[in-house]
């Protein structure tokens, strides 16, 4: 089966600024693909090009077997989009906005829509101008999740949601994949994407710098440990994959390569652990360590 999205050598300029400089991205059918990158890396620009809202300057793009610029209308019947900044019509209610977006696409599931309003604890009777950012996002999410489509394009869809709603969102995405949908999920928070994504592509300064399963990327990530042990922790420095061991007050802090976490924990057990905090790797650490700290290309958003 062909890929849902296949992009090769995509370029986009805004005046003098190069927003995308030869981006390659493949998303297989049926997978949740995490599209990860710092703010301004080019995620939104890529999504807007996939929607035919912006015209690519160079490169080839195949979306559900079509061209996103010329076949926009036909393709849009088979996909739904949640923008990063959802804006509503001030005088229309949230419920009206959901219905309009659904009808304009042409395949909204009425029962699903009502069920999603309940699950997201969303009041559809208020006027658009009165909703908070999180509630505006729910409008776009409900409209997208209630649609019977092949592909969901989600641009930082949970940025305004509280943790409770975030977990509802994760449930909905699992249901969507169970129904055979493909999801492209953009985010700048690694932990968020990690939970849902089958594969991840990391974008930086308008290019994909890394792509693969989370497992594949273990070698790139380091978990940070902060431990308090009965015996002195200095010996940890000798363990494989342990970096940057330093005392912090009474405790020790060090980083462990993703693949060596097991060995480090075994080593720790021998020292008599009194307390242990392990912090998952962040996107920022990863990017900083592997790709330097040059300022990313600015994106207009």
């Amino acid at each position, binding site marked *: 089966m062909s890929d849902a999205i296949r992009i090769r050598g995509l370029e986009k300029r805004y005046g003098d600024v190069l927003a995308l400089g030869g981006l390659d991205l493949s998303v297989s059918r049926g997978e949740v693909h995490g599209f990860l990158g710092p703010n301004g890396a080019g995620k939104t620009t890529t999504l807007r090009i996939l929607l035919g809202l912006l015209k690519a300057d160079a490169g080839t793009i195949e979306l559900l077997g079509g061209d996103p610029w010329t076949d926009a209308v036909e393709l849009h019947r088979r996909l739904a989009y949640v923008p990063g900044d959802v804006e509503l019509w001030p005088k229309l209610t949230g*419920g009206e906005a959901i219905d309009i977006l659904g009808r304009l696409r042409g395949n909204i599931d009425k029962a699903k829509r009502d069920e999603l309003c309940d699950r997201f604890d969303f009041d559809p*009777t208020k006027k658009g101008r009165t909703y908070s950012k999180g509630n505006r996002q729910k409008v776009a999410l409900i409209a997208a999740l209630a649609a019977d489509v092949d592909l969901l394009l989600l641009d930082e869809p949970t940025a305004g949601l509280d943790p409770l709603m975030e977990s509802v969102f994760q449930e909905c995405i699992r249901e969507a994949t169970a129904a055979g949908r493909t999801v492209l999920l953009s985010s700048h928070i690694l932990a968020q994407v990690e939970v849902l994504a089958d594969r991840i592509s990391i974008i930086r300064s308008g290019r994909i710098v890394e792509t693969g399963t989370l497992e594949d990327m273990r070698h790139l990530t380091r978990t940070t440990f902060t431990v308090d042990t009965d015996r002195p922790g200095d010996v940890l420095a000798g363990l494989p994959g342990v970096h940057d061991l330093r005392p912090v007050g009474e405790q020790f802090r060090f980083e462990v390569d993703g693949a060596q976490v097991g060995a480090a924990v075994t080593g720790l057990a021998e020292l008599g652990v009194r307390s242990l905090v392990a912090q998952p790797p962040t996107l920022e650490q990863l990017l900083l360590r592997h790709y330097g700290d040059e300022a990313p290309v600015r994106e207009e958003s």
Partner: protein
Amino acid sequence: MTIPQNTASARFNGTLRLVRFNLRRDRIKFPAWVLGISFMVVYFTSALPVLFGGEEELAESAGGFLTGPVVALFGGPGYGFDELTYPRFFVGIYGLYILVMAATMNILMISRHTRAEEQTGRAELVRANVVGRMAQLSSALLVTVAANVAVSTLIGLVLISKGYQAADSLLFGAGVGAVGFAFAGVAAVTVQLTEFSRSASGLAGVVLGSAYAIRTAGDAIGEHGSTLSWFSPLAWSQQTRTFVDGRWWPLLLSLAFASVTIGVGYALAARRDFGAGLLPARSGSPVAASWLGSPLALAFRLQRGTILGWGLFLVAWGYGNGAIVEPVADGLQGMSPEVLAIFGGDAGSIIDGYLARMGFYNAAVISVFIVLGGHFIRSEEYGGRTEPILATATSRSAWLGSNLLVVAIGSAVLLAVTGLAMGLGSAVAMGESDLVWSVTASHLAFIPGLFVILGIAGVLYGMVPGAVGVTWVVVAYVFVMGFFAPLWDLPQWVLNLSPLEHVPGIPLEDLVLTPLVLLTLTSVVLAMGALVSFRQRDLVAN
């Protein structure tokens, strides 16, 4: 450390600092309003001698048709109209517009510095500082006091410089400021009622409109107004009998009214939560109406309120202008050839000339609706509301085409109802039922011309959305040609650049189809250009 008690002065803490801050934010708006209103006074007072050529001519030509209801509708109680002079005519007719402008300035200033700040959340930053609960309302009111004093003084000085009697010049200026302050008080109340600055301004605008209507009715009933007139804040400034037998005491009513409304505003402000309104926010339908399922339906739904508002105003305006056809025509007959030229130049067919000219003016006014429609389309894109629509199975052509079509049909409907209302008004006044149809036809003939202006707006938007504003140049050109071309003796090609100059002036002239067909074809080509160019470009990100 002890915390000071919530004394009276604590509630106003920071007021003066906020006044300076507000003036800093209004460094353009404040002088623009004050100078703008004063300039209108300069303009009106300078135009009078040019228009009439002498006070005797003024009394002769204007005195005839400026009677009873006509003065009541467009002016006021009409003090001193039996012996018209420039100052009396200025105060009695144009004075009303100056008063309305001052009231509008005050409403917008109060709304902008109180409710708009709360609505956007900026006021939260300010209030989290050492700033009292009443400081923002107080500082907004102080800014309007400054604006009203400035307007009053400037207007007084302008009138004195025109050689108008000094004491009454200052009295008229003070009357403008007094009305302004009364409506600052009205706005101080309405901003407490709703959570939204536009609704607050709208509510205060309704009060202003009612004040206008009450005054009109009151002034129409009796000579120099009636008891009913005195229920309108606009009337108090008009009842000063400026340049006739000046008296200051009616302005005390304005001050009392302002004091009471401001007191009510403070009392309401003390009883409500920050950011909340006293009127409950209305909820709406949880589902969209069944017809609301196409780009065209959405475009209509979003512009419906605007079209309705314009329609109501234009029907009243059209009927009023139709109803006064006879006295106006009589008055025009005595005017200079320059003025007559605007209305067709022939005193014998002045009624037809007047009706035809009004068709043109109304079409020119509706061209403003068209450009605002272009701005609406742009604001949808800039506001990020077009993006989710185009991400559905809606093509760019369908989206832009629907929006342009709604503006087009809206402008045609506005022309039709304006023409019908004016036709009815004039038919009733003249007792000639045929006028209903000829005046309506006169208005409808402008449809293709207006569509060309819409097409220009569409092409500009399709290429560069920010360029929509350039269409104002076309509208300004249409107005200038319409008002001044008959006076200037311009070459034909200069006139031809205005789309509305190709339209025959019915009923003075006969209907000629060729220009209308050509205008229609031009507008179709422009509309296609708009759709094609919009398909080529990037959507603007919000």
